[in-house]
């Protein structure tokens, strides 16, 4: 649940980009850093090894201010996708307010996607998140590559699930903002009740989403 610090007048919302290794989680954050122009935007912190694989996490901080003066801070994290970093993944996932599951659209990656999604559900349970209520967006990335699953096929597969599916090519920034907006809408609904965003702080859902995921002019 979002972290409210009354003394600092600040809410911190943690959003985690999860998914199989090399599906484009870090690329999502890098493009968001380029494209978004919210009120506040920190520098992106990356911890990569020499071969560009995320070892611990990446972090992109964003911030907006509600009409009430409340600072709403978003911390966008990525997890390391490689199987052996499961404990790290679990620690990064803990206390998340929303998750983007970045899947690799290539047909050959279907099994890895499935395993990573199961891993997400398991780890969510292990860190005490209610997976059934957790705001979640499924992003099918790398639409520009040959040998990807057709959109109809993917939609048919995820038809029964309650999560929105977004198609993207993160490398050129396509679909990454839409993904974040789809997640922010769910996050707003999940925390509005407790944080009184609209009632006390005068922040409606569209304003919340636009302020956080506003595009550079």
């Amino acid at each position, binding site marked *: 649940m979002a972290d409210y*610090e009354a003394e*600092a007048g*600040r809410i*911190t919302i*943690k959003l985690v980009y999860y998914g199989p290794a090399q599906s484009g989680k870090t690329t999502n954050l890098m493009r968001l850093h380029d494209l978004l122009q919210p009120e*506040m*935007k*920190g*520098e992106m*912190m990356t*911890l990569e090894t020499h071969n560009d694989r995320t070892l*611990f*996490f990446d*972090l992109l*901080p*964003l*911030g907006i201010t509600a009409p009430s003066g409340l*600072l709403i*801070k978003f*911390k966008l*994290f990525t997890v390391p996708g490689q199987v052996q*970093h499961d*404990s*790290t993944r*679990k*620690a*990064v996932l*803990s*206390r998340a307010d929303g998750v983007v599951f970045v899947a690799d659209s290539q047909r050959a990656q279907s099994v890895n996607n499935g395993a990573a999604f199961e891993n997400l559900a398991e780890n969510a*349970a*292990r*860190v*005490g998140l209610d997976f059934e209520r957790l705001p979640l967006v499924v992003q099918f990335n790398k639409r520009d590559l040959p040998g990807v699953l057709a959109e109809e096929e993917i939609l048919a597969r995820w038809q029964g699930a309650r999560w929105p599916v977004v198609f993207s090519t993160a490398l050129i920034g396509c679909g990454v903002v839409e993904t974040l907006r789809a997640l922010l809408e769910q996050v707003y609904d999940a925390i509005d009740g407790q944080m009184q965003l609209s009632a006390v702080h005068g922040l409606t859902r569209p304003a919340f989403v636009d302020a956080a995921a506003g595009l550079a002019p």
Partner: protein
Amino acid sequence: MSPDTVPAAGFDRELGLDELLRSVDRARLADALVALLGTGLRLSDVRGRELLARGEVHGGVRLPVRGEMEPIGYLECDATEAQAAAAVVLLQWILRANARYLMASELHLQAVHEDYAELQRRHAALQESEARYRELALHLEQRVAEQVQTIEATQRRLYQSEKLASVGQLAAGVAHEINNPIGFIASNLNTAQGYLQRLGHWAEQLPAAPDLAAVQQAWAAADLGFVLQDFSDLIDESRSGAARVARIVADLKGFSRVDQGGEEAADINAIIRQVCNVAEGQIRGRLAPVFVLGEVPPLRCNAAQLGQVILNLLLNAADAVTPPGVVTFETAVAQGQLRLRVHDNGGGIPPTVLPRIFDPFFTTKEVGRGTGLGLTVSNDIVRAHGGRIEVDSRPGAGTTFTVWLPLR
């Protein structure tokens, strides 16, 4: 599900200026900043706590120092705005490098603790399952022994019932066999009694007879010449009948010693004949035994048990043939073993049935006719004697059972 171990604050908590300066040599940092700014300075966090101070500050410039985004502290000095801004940029680089280091190391620590806890959990689970298996192994031998005992007891009961079934079948045949001679012996004795009365009646007339001619006349009138001849025939017939009964009883005794059967040197040819005699009533009219018995040495065996094997093969042959059938018993010594062949000229065993004939409770006979244990028991008996049973059967060509018994 309850969370495993989620610390109250993790690697992703907000880092204050104080914490970010913890690993920095503050005196040397202050020296460097003084040299850069050329004035005194004051660095404080957002709550106004002073973290670094050198020299006098007269309230010239006050710039925010930002962590991730928002100010986490303020730098005050009397240098120019540009100098102060440059100092803040340098300071923020140091802070960011420290933040990276702190977050990475704390996350690493958290992951290591997690891995360690997971390893300990698995270790405990392994120890538990090892203990379970050890316990199981401990009791396994005992439980196997108990099971073996149960199975052996059941088997003994089954074999006993098979023996009783074949003995019962036999008893019916034997009763019939004995009934026949007993019947004509009793009838002969009746006739003999009549003959005795006629002789006695004639003998009573002897004292009062006037002469030999009258005696002879009375003899002829009572037809006592025939009586004497027939009396002798009756006695002969009855003696042979009694001998037949005695022989059947002797054979039956030989065969029924199943329980007390120890090992003895036995003549297999004699056992074959004995069994055929005992079962004669059951096979008469259906099957005629033919004996091709060779010269074989005495065999150390349980004669009663081998008798049961031969009886089983004989009765199976009787059921297999279309009357009148022939069963041939052939004994010989071959390959250093005693070989007994039992061949019938019946319909043969279908190939689908052949692989199952030694299976317990497998029977092709109608309900109540066969126990389905005859060949199973026979096979076990022969194996207990160190031998084996082979079957050769072709539909239409009859069946040959070959029993091999080692000569020890």
